[in-house]
């Protein structure tokens, strides 16, 4: 039988990595930097967390390493888009390709193709942390002068600059922190549920998180809710599979469910989505 509490529990488990990454996406995009590189930041975070937790035998070090790895990749994205003026999508795609290659390379060179670790960060800790991140990001954008400046940087960098805001510094900070958040999403993926890292472990969750950001109209709470919508779809399809519905509906189609639901929702609701006006701008403000 299908147990509703189990589905909700599973949904929160699936949501945690997505929620973190989606908050990273909101932070970066509201500051005007397209972040399709969330995937790379999650994957780098997941790998560093598992590698360090297993090597040091301490899950806390793993958590810190995962966050730091995500932040480092985020910083790289900031350098590429702000200093080197690489188009944001191109930088993100490059990071995704490169980090996938690098983590797989290191995984095979040092860990024999897979990491399994008993040094886990329990979901009871990391899921509340993700909820806290949502509230914190919402609070910063809605209630603080910093949030106002960040929004100004994303909407009209030229005006922000003439009002004395250091656009470049704020963007560096936002994108680096965005990477740290996505890195935490990676930690939730490798150290919370499974205690393992495998090649291409994120499997596109960074893209889904970005979809949630857009679906949630660049609003922290909206993005978090959109990510939960996807996670619920995923939990539902897994419950349906274990409930033996696979006899009537093929598992391949059940796996499609969260993607299809998100697609339908995007098609039905995104008519008037308005991204930050200067999103993706590589020109001098």
């Amino acid at each position, binding site marked *: 039988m299908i147990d509703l509490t189990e589905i909700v529990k599973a949904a929160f488990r699936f949501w945690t990595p997505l929620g973190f990454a989606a908050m990273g996406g909101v932070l970066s995009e509201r500051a005007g930097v*397209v972040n*399709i590189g969330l995937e790379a930041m999650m994957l780098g975070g997941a790998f560093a967390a598992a590698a360090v937790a297993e090597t040091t035998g301490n899950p806390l070090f793993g958590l810190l390493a995962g966050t730091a790895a995500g932040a480092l990749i985020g910083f790289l994205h900031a350098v*590429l888009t702000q200093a*080197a*003026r*690489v*188009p*944001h*999508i*191109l*930088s993100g*795609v*490059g*990071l*995704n*390709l*490169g*980090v*996938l*290659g*690098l983590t*797989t*390379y*290191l995984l*095979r*060179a*040092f860990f024999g193709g897979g990491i399994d670790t008993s040094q886990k960060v329990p979901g009871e800790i990391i899921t509340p942390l993700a909820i806290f991140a949502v509230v914190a990001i919402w609070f910063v954008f809605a209630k603080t002068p910093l949030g106002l400046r960040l929004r100004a940087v994303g909407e009209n960098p030229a005006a922000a600059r003439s009002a004395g805001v250091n656009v470049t510094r704020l963007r560096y900070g936002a994108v680096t922190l965005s990477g740290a958040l996505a890195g935490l999403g990676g930690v939730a993926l490798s150290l919370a549920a499974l205690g393992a890292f495998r090649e291409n472990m994120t499997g*596109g969750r960074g*893209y*889904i998180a*970005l*979809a949630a950001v*857009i*679906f949630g109209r660049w609003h922290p709470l909206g993005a978090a809710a959109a990510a939960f919508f996807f996670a619920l779809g995923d939990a539902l399809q897994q419950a349906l599979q274990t409930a033996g519905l696979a006899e009537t509906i*093929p598992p*391949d*189609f059940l*796996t*499609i469910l969260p*993607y*299809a639901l*998100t*697609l339908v929702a*995007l*098609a*039905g609701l*995104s*008519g*008037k*989505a*308005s*991204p*930050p*006006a*200067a*999103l*993706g*701008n*590589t020109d*001098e403000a």
Partner: protein
Amino acid sequence: MIRRFNAAGGFVRALLALLAALLVGAVVIALAQRDVSAPLTAYAALLKGAVGSAQGWSQTLDRTMPILLTGVGVAVALAAGLFNIGAEGQLAVGGLASAVVGYSFPGLPAPLLLLLAMLAGMLGGAAWAYLPALLKEKRGAHEVITAILLNYIARNTTKYLASVSPPRGFKDPTSGGVQRTPEVAATFPRLFGDFDVHLGLVVAVVAVVAVAVLLRRTVWGYETRAVGEGAGAAEAAGIRVSRVRIVAMLVSGALCGLAGAVEILGPTRYRAFPADFYGAGFGFDGLAVALLAGGSPWAVLPSALLFGILGSGAEIMEFEADTPKQIVAVVQALVIVAVAARIVGRKRAATTPAAPPAVPPAIEGPSKTEADA
């Protein structure tokens, strides 16, 4: 003359980017294997494997073939200011469509059957690309997000269809545990003796040249580029932006679908559509190749060849030098990012006439579309 100078500058830049990327890759290899000579051994094995023999060249060109098509496909979309991240899904759908046609009509003469199968592949890819294009124009949904979602849907749907026997799917009932469609009734002839490289390569090169010429010399090409340069100005000039964008995505999807078809219809690698066809990576390679080419169809030729060399050499390198082949993905990523990096500095970029941007301006943010609408 000016254009030629720019092209030469772009070439030098790409070469420098490649060298820098190889250098960084070498540092990673040397650190990981704790051996300063390891990078040299690895790169030598790569180069020797990819272009050191006729057999190597054949494998390299065979690998370049699908990337040429996905690369030029993504480049067409880029020219119109769209980022077709759905290439991988369109390739899978096109591959399945071509396989189904390829085995369904065994009575037809081989050339006609191949032609029909290619056409089916193009239609399949175009249909899959039509969805994000339509959702963008009608509903304002960003094409990158919808295409990513459609990639997953393509992966699972093609997997399902290739693993279930008729009437629900297309699996070969006689293939037992092997999940694939029946073999196609005709395959492309090989070009040179027993070597893998086949007529599909010619198809791919012709497609790249055709797109390059059409994009430069026809009204369609002019309108497509105008939309890519700035949708607002194009609209003001009387161009139907929405229609141009949809056509660009259809052409892009058709080329990616054709890439799937030439893979399936080759004499050695596939011959039938396997359930795990999605994810071979030729679609994502196409994205990287198009970005490396700066959206220029002509530059897709050398860019795809570079990716073909790195891709086919990587396998040999892993085998001969014991270096995991994924280091090549790192090098490829560094190349595309380095090529686009404007390291010259802001002031110069602002005062001198701007070099052609690596990617049409309209691609840089999803905001532009909504602003134009």
